[in-house]
């Protein structure tokens, strides 16, 4: 395959756009990544190799711009043409399934979370590449290991690229008016803050409707911060527990402080309400801040200055119960150019490429390799700090059981979200809801 005129035009405009996007301490990025001296991986590139890559669509421009620019750099360096298709998040799963079932199409699919577990028999082993990257860049973050390796082994199925984390996003001045410098880390304190914000007319707002990312993230935080969990280490449903009941009761109190309408929000609900000044605090990725900061409207820029991020309150947990949704790259066995495919991924993960991409996404993606947390941009804008450790977490979809496709099915069916939603609206008692949700979850964890 050769790069067509149209594609080269896109590439050209992409690099022009790249140049015009304000860089946040990014150009110097490459030098601020500590690397270990590791013997370089020398993949024998196949003659006449060409690659096709499927990737989730961007939510913020630099994600695509820098990805394309890095890809072009790879083509320039190796002569291997690479075509990258950005497709919508919802289409990734079905398309990956088609790729896997037909054994044709893209050589590399960048999927999500537990996808590599589903296709374990159809994707190439990545242990050599993962070991090399881990050794060079200070090791993999905890969440990378959970999603990248076969459960409880050191065998790598995929290369986790980066994760989208959702810490607390809040208006500093309003939280200060309520009498706080920071968001309290305990349940009681957090609830009191929410009550004060509610009284002041700047309530907390987080979806409990059918919002795939937001509502599931919020429900997971409620569970995990009470040390409750969907399944235990052996993969048995453990949802119907006294910890879950406590979380449900707490959520009911919290709901009274929430903005009206949070039960019908989809994933854009809190973003819209925050930008409109209707809520003072929510949980979200960096996209709200990015949107406010890069808006041409000075009022929104001012709001960005007043916006602050913090890890989710710990509650009873020992670490902040916050997970991330990682992009997870797989090389399918059907590819004619496995070495080129791996080499492309290696190239994209190396500091010269990954650094600028990461720093220009300003936290939209949290790094999967530890060394990248040391990059200067994380601290140059202190608001970004919580995102630097987005993948440094033991929490994942379907915590604490084995990483399996079953947890994705529970997430997609809003089982835990609906449990909370039915209780906080008074439509079910905590006990009934927990029992029913456990039965629902059991449908997908059946063996």
């Amino acid at each position, binding site marked *: 395959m050769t790069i067509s005129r149209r594609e080269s035009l896109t590439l050209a405009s992409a690099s022009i756009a790249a140049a015009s996007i304000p860089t946040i301490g990014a150009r110097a990025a490459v030098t601020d990544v500590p690397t270990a001296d590791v013997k370089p991986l020398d993949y024998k590139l196949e003659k006449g190799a060409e690659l096709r890559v499927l990737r989730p669509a961007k939510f913020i421009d630099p994600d695509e711009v820098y990805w394309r620019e890095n890809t072009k750099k790879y083509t320039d360096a190796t002569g291997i043409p690479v075509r990258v298709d950005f497709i919508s998040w*919802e289409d990734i*799963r*079905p398309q*990956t*399934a088609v790729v*896997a*079932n037909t054994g044709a199409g893209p050589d590399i699919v960048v999927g999500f979370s537990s996808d590599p577990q*589903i*296709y374990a028999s159809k994707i190439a082993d990545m242990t050599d590449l993962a070991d090399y990257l881990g050794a060079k860049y200070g090791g993999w973050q905890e969440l990378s290991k959970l999603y990248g390796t076969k459960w409880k082994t050191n065998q790598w199925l995929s290369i986790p690229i980066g994760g989208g984390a959702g810490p607390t996003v809040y208006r500093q001045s309003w939280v200060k008016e309520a009498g706080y410098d920071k968001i309290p880390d305990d349940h009681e304190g957090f609830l009191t803050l929410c009550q004060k914000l509610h009284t002041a007319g700047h309530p907390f707002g987080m979806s*409990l*409707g*059918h919002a*795939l990312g937001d509502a599931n993230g919020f429900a997971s935080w409620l569970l995990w911060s009470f040390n409750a969990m969907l399944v235990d280490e052996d993969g048995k449903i453990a949802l119907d527990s006294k910890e879950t009941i406590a979380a449900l009761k707490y959520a009911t109190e919290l709901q009274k402080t929430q*903005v*009206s*309408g*949070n*039960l*019908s*929000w*989809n994933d854009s*609900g809190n973003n*819209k*309400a925050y930008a*409109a000044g*209707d809520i003072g605090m929510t949980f979200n990725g960096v996209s709200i801040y990015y949107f406010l900061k890069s808006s041409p409207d000075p009022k929104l820029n001012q709001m960005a200055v007043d916006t602050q991020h913090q890890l989710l309150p710990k509650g009873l947990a020992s670490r902040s119960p916050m997970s991330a949704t990682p992009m997870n790259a797989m090389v399918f066995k059907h590819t004619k150019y496995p070495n080129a495919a791996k080499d492309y991924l290696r190239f994209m993960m190396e500091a010269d490429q990954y650094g600028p991409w990461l720093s220009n996404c300003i936290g939209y993606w949290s790094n999967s390799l530890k060394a990248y947390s040391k990059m200067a941009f994380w601290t140059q804008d202190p608001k970004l700090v919580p995102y630097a450790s987005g993948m440094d977490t033991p929490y994942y979809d379907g915590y604490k059981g084995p990483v399996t*496709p079953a947890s*994705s*099915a529970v997430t*997609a*069916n*809003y089982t835990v*979200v*609906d449990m909370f*939603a*039915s209780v906080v*609206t008074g*439509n079910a008692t905590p006990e009934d809801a927990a029992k*029913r949700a456990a039965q*629902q979850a059991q*449908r*997908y964890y059946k063996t």
Partner: protein
Amino acid sequence: MDATTGDLALEWKPRKQHSRIGRLFDSKPFLVALCLLPTVGLLVVFLTYPLGLGLWLSMTDTTIGQPGEYIGLDNFYSLFSDPVFWGAVWYTIFYTAVATVGKFLLGLWLALLLNNHIPFKAFIRAIVLLPWIVPTVLSAIAWWWIYDPQFSIVSFVLVDVLHWRTHYIDFLGSPWSARWSLIVANIWRGIPFVAITLLAGLQTISPSLYEAALLDGASGWQQFRRITVPLLMPILSVALTLSVLFTFSDFQLVYAITRGGPFNSTHLMATLAFQRAIPGSQLGEGAAIAVSMIPFLLVATLVCFFGVGRRKWQQGSDND
């Protein structure tokens, strides 16, 4: 002009013996088969095959990424004990019933109004069709904004302009208001189809019937009851059947506005089937839910046809 026949005397040419292909094309059964072929082909490829595949999938435990095995009716047994599934069945029936009644009452009313002589008739009739013409996804997004808890135009008018309420309305935040909101959106979208279809039916009714009734001293209600309704029945039953089918298998409105939330109270069978099959990866179970719609659709179709349209005109004879 005088016709001179002499020069144009027809030359008699004996008909050539047809070749075998020619004879083949003369045979009626062959021609029938040939003309049917494209349609049958299309139906098989785009209807029978997907339907058959759906039926087969519903009897397997296929997930996205894993070819499944035949498991008989296990998916259906498991669904029968699933309250979410029964909730979706219940709401689908409720949604279809209420929305259909609403659409027909308002649609008939609109058709009767449009049947009168009013200024700008053609223009108004075109406008009436708008909800039907706009792609459903777009109108669904418009309704989604109308029902937004923070940015609803309805709430804005009631609270900020008219000061009739102090709080914005949370249309989609609780089960019943969400259900009714979706039904209203569906009715809005369905009215034009009913109105235009019934209007076409109204225009086929001969004005002489009304004149005769007028001479006999029939009141407006009697005219409606004894002339309009019976003569509208044939087209009414067709419109009703189609409308019930469309409403029962609705997907886009619900998926764009609530995705089945809050807590599954607004799931239709179609949205639940999609949620389980594609985002949830359980293709077998999703297919089973979709297949479960077939009996309901059959019953609904039969009821519409035989219930509303049991009169003799269906066989082509006079109404009695």
